[in-house]
């Protein structure tokens, strides 16, 4: 089971990274979403895999580690906030420049400044 989960995390990460390396904003946002799924699961697994022992006090002997769960819960919500912010940046950038390229156009670089000579 550990191998299945680890390779699943790897698959999601690889797909997310591949999309992030694209040149348009929308695939990058989608890639970020995938990457945050992968990372959230990765963080969660630091509490190790436990089946049928949810951390709800019932008098059982052992429970899954609640701390990574609590951290990941907020991380999921925060990644939504981040995705929303980035997607809006992408929208605004597209509306403003009529292109959704993620690269900086050449002429946005400052000209040569005065040097010592």
């Amino acid at each position, binding site marked *: *089971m*550990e*191998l*299945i989960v*680890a390779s*699943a*995390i*790897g*698959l*999601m*990460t*690889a*797909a997310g*990274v*591949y*999309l992030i*390396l*694209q*040149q*348009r904003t*929308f695939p*990058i*946002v*989608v890639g970020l*979403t*995938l990457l945050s799924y992968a990372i959230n699961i990765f963080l*969660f697994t*630091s509490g*190790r*895999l*436990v*089946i*049928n022992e949810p*951390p709800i*006090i019932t008098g059982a002997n052992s*429970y*899954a580690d609640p*701390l990574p*769960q*609590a951290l*990941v819960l*907020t991380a*999921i919500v925060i990644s*939504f*906030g981040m995705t*929303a*912010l980035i997607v*809006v940046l992408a*929208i605004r950038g*597209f*509306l*403003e420049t009529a292109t*959704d390229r*993620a*690269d*900086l156009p050449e002429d946005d*670089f400052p000209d040569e400044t005065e*040097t*010592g*000579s």
Partner: protein
Amino acid sequence: MLLALATLTPFLGAVVPLLTDRLGRDICALATGAVTLTALILVMSHAPAVYSGEVVTWSVPWVPAIGLSFSFFADGLGLFFAGLILGIGLLIILYARYYLSSKDSLSLLYFYLLLFQGAMVGIVLSDNILLLIVFWELTSLSSFLLIGYWRHLPESRQGARMALVVTGGGGLALIAGMLILGHIAGSYEITEILQRGEAVRSSPLFLPALCLILLGAFTKSAQFPFHFWLPHAMAAPTPVSAYLHSATMVKAGLFLMARLWPVFSPSEAWFLIVAPVGLITMLIAAWIALFRNDLKALLAYSTVSHLGLTTMLLGFATPMAVIAAVFHILNHATFKAALFMSAGIVDHETGTRDIRRLGGLMMLMPITATLTFIAAASMAGVPFFNGFLSKEMMLEEASHTAIGGHPWVIPFLVTLAALISAAYSYRLAISTFLGPVRDDYPKKPHDPPIGMRLPVAILAVLVIAIGIFPAQTAGAIVERTALAVVGEPLPKYYLALWHGFTPALLMSVIALVGGALLFWCYNAANQLRLVFASMDAKSVFDATISGLVRGARSAIEATHNGSFSRYAGIILVTIVIVGAAAFFDAPYGAGTRQVIPGTFPATAAWVVLGALCISLLFWHQNRLLSLIFTSGVGLIAALFFLQFSAPDLSLTQISVDIVTTILLLLALNLVPQTSPQETSTGGRFARGFVASAVGFGVAALAYAVMTRDFQSISDYHLAESKPGGGGTNVVNVILVDFRGFDTYGEIIVLGIAAITIFALLDNALRGAAARTLANIRSDRVQSVNAHPLILVVATRVLFPLALVVAAFVFLRGHNEPGGGFVSGLVVAIALIMQYIASGYNWAAERMRLDSHVLIGAGVLIAGLTGVVSLMFGWPFLTSTYTYVELPLVGEFEVASAMAFDLGVFLAVVGVVMLSLAQISRVEARAEPEAVPEGPMDVPLEDGQVVSSRSSRSSEGKES
């Protein structure tokens, strides 16, 4: 206390000239002078104590962890330099008042000058070497402003930049050297370090520390091979040059060498580095100075030469040489400041500083000429002027100092340097003032106003007074200062005009007569100079700098070319390499934790996930399709959490997945529907390779983590959840109680993100954005039935049910899976569904709750919960709970954490609504058809069903 105040006075007083600027130049100069005078009085109030042998100290800790304290001390040396800096500063302020033309801002010059003055006083009075470095850097910065004062002149800007690069670079070396020194001495207080010279010298790190500190001192004091910046700094206004290069900035290096003299001078390395560097600087700079035609350039190189002289004396490492060095610093400050100001007067009156165009000024400006002669005679080393005395002491010391077993090398070279020095002094005075009166001066010269002559006259009087009665005028100062440098009783010495027939006298005579001869055959010497192809240090500096700039630029262009994928690629590849290096650097063994056997559902989910990810790679250019695949991955993540004992996470994941998908769908309406194929096959393979490497690394790491046992701190949370937090859902208790502060921070971050989204889109309906939007609207193919009746009806019926579910999830959250986050998302989804089904305008008209208010209220309620516990005397966000008996429902508990969870709930609803509704609002502009009034529409309060069409047209009018 007064010491610290004396240092801070110029800094605090720096605003005074700016404030008094409107009151006229006289008031401005007076007020600035008053600031300096105050500082001078504060410093000098310690003179009686210091001159009776005390060392005045004052200290408060600043950053004790790194040994930095705000500590000052005044002994003879510090007081001597502070007096020079502030005393000459006063004269410069007076002089600048008359020197600066009315076009230039006097107050700005005074402002920079006071900043610089404060930094200099800070250097000489600091007890802590880290504090000293702070002031040292401040002098580099403020001198940059001063040298570049005429910012419209390119020479001025280049000179300023060169000074900053050289002294700032030396400053970096100094920081490193000082840190090593403090480390090996075990203290950063100068008074302590001076006691531990023996320990410092025996450390293996002594030589690096010495070299680095000397690098800082040599760059600041323009010692060879860093001498080239000082003449270029002459592009500054003359008052600045006179100040920086006679009394202050360049003396900072000398001060530092004198300050640390007891620690360093007993070592062999000190003599072998410092004395030759000083000697070479003295000789080379004198030779260059002789042939300068610009008065200020001549003075600049002569300053470098005299700094070299003083450096050499400190390098001799004998108490007598220190006495000579201290005396020469004093004498040089007097005659060189006077000469700079005279040069400024000549420039001011004739309009040129070129010696070849001057001459004969004696008749036209006799007073200035006389004053210049006095100062120049002192510089040449003519008897009865103070320069003679210290120069003779220097020659005396040099005459019996051998280097490398050769007793004649130093005496010979020193005499040669003194000879050249006499020659350029003659040239300066004679070529400018004697000879026939010319009729081609750019301006008609005459003696300047008294305000410009007075500072020169004061200094000239000092030059003669010290020259004739050295023991009576300067004796006490020299003694006390040298005592402070050496740190032990001085040998017997006499400051006197006549010491009998000594070797030094002979050398003096040779220098004066030889200098006259050299000046007499100046033209021949000039031919000789041209034979030696001289290398211009500035062109070397420029070539170095432009080489560095080119290197930096090509490095930046290769990496920082504006391509996002390149940045991301560089970061990712670096992470992979660092991770791999760490992995192969350490032994690795397989984990020992018991592995859970795989199941069929898990394998099936894995296959689906793999299929989704691979499909994404192939069809990501179809953006709608990529979105569907991604939400599928999210659903599998939710299943994963459910499988592995995390029901809360599963609920949250599935709600967030829905919200994210809606968000991206909305966004997709506003951006192109497909991504063009832009990358080459090679580019795709490279991306695929990077992605695989990262994915493999993460998978391996996750596997390594999961197959190992671990120690968790969660036992406490599990044990205390019920008795301490009053809830059985430990995850929820952690969120709202144990780690409530984190959650509080998180909802604030979410709120900020939502408000940023609002701000980004709020004004997106104007300008270029509006035009792009109009194009989208006309291009888009729309569904015939944008708002299907079944969807409209279903969402409206489901809405109250969804609210009930949300309330249920919220209330049980403390004990069972659920809570504020999840129920907030459920409510938000229910609301968003109304927007989707019935259109933005229809829903917006009926939405009575302002999302901004929701976010604000959420954060406020959560915060108040914490404040309430503060009022009961508990720490912020401590929770308490009690049991309440309700009819029908039975006994249930109410925890104060529930109020906190309510804040979370409100904030989440507000954040989701604000971001999604804001995007929909922009989109509503692109909607071609208004929503037809549906059969289920409830009339609005004012009694009429407002159709979307009318509101849309009114919105259209507004914009």
